[in-house]
């Protein structure tokens, strides 16, 4: 082949190669622009979201009315025995037992002491179980309907409040202490303003057994609930009425949590009341008594 033809062929190959390289560069540039554009859009969106966000965190939810509270209290007290028996211990954790301690009494009856705070989400959970259990031994009046703190964990958990309430029963006494309210106060041990003050005896029990945390429940000084028996996650986003209604469905997570915890508390109280009344201390509850740590 003449050298001229070889030179021409080489030139053609080089032109084709150059064209291909240019096409690849153009394609890569387009892809880079697309990727870069996508990354830039994400960054701009994030900056816009942060820049224009609302300045204030969520406000506390409004408390329920007295009429609503009475309705919810009646619903909680009216959970059928069959529902309780079906749930058993449910998904709630048990109690711890004291050893060799004298029975805590008031007015000749075993006394249950509760200490907690209205802001406290775990107290919010435990109050449902405590109210449900004690409603099997007596009657509550003046319960409040509130939410736990909107800025704490399990924000705005719907719950009851014992502040200003009264419990009457032939079988057991109840001494609730809503120690802290919703308002912030950095000077207190739990960072919230005092609402009520415990008696010296209650403070001594708390100091002895609570490990510095709330909720704290002392059942006749024979059984202790040093922390909430279940997490309030199942209560999130529900109204008080919805919680009370769900407690009647033994298959619901709410019933397994609240009714289960209430059954355990009921079993503990029944050991102190000689299994009275029979409507509370059912055979199913008495079988739970045998599982209590002693």
């Amino acid at each position, binding site marked *: 082949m003449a050298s001229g033809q070889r030179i021409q062929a080489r030139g053609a190959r080089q032109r084709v190669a150059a064209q291909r390289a240019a096409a690849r560069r153009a394609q890569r540039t387009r*892809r*880079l622009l697309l990727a870069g554009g996508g*990354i830039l859009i994400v960054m701009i969106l994030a900056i816009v979201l942060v820049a224009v966000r609302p300045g204030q*965190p969520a406000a506390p939810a409004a408390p329920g009315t007295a009429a609503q509270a009475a309705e919810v209290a009646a619903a909680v007290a009216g959970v059928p025995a069959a529902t309780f028996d079906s749930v058993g211990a449910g998904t709630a954790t048990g109690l711890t037992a004291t050893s060799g301690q004298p029975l805590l009494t008031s007015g000749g009856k075993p006394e249950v002491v509760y200490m907690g705070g209205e802001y406290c989400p775990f107290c919010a959970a435990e109050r449902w179980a405590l109210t449900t259990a004690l409603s099997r031994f007596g009657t509550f009046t003046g319960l409040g309907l509130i939410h736990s703190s909107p800025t704490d964990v399990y924000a705005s958990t719907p719950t009851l409040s014992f502040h200003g309430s009264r419990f009457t029963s032939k079988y057991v006494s109840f001494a609730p202490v809503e120690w802290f309210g919703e308002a912030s106060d950095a000077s207190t041990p739990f960072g919230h303003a005092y609402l009520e003050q415990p008696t010296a005896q209650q403070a001594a029990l708390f100091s002895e057994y609570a490990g510095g945390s709330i909720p704290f429940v002392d059942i006749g000084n024979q059984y202790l609930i040093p922390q909430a028996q279940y997490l309030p996650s199942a209560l999130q986003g529900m109204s008080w009425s919805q919680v009370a209604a769900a407690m009647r469905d033994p298959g619901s997570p709410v019933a397994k949590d609240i009714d289960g915890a209430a059954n355990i508390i009921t079993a503990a109280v029944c050991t102190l009341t000689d299994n009275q009344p029979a409507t509370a201390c059912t055979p199913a509850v008495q079988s739970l008594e045998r599982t209590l740590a002693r």
Partner: protein
Amino acid sequence: MVTSKPSPASRPGPGQPAGGWSAGTVPEPSGPSGPPSWLQGVALLLAIAGLGVSAYETYAHFNGSHLAGCPTGQGTFNCTAVITSPQSMVFGVIPVAILGLVFYIFAVAIMTPWAWRMRRPEVAWLRLGSMVAGMGFVMYLIYAELYQIGQVCEYCTVVHVTTFLLFAITAVSAALWGVRT
């Protein structure tokens, strides 16, 4: 006159025109066949870091535990309030923490050197598509923190930034080295 006999290398092959190479046989220039090892390593480390934080957040979500180093209270930052909020459950049933954990288990797998070496377009598209989807979900989570919950979780922010970096690496890699073999 000096002539040179054609060497076997220059003799046209079957089906090729006489006179030399055809346009169809112009050799492709050689170049890198994918992201460099150091970039693959960075992506894998980011994915592993994201997996670690996601696993810790999942544990805290189910145990109601306080995340180490996170403040509580009414300030802007409150991790536990965020991970236990109603917005922490997608459609009310699937914890976001679980979604994050599953995403990062997948991310670790798709960012391994072995996965990068798989020069299959399906794998590359899956990598790119999953990072785009993950980034989209992160934007929703940022919106939920700022506009619905009103507080920010530092651990979640670490995961969000990690996802953004993985998204950026994957997007740039796809742009520079393509997604086709």
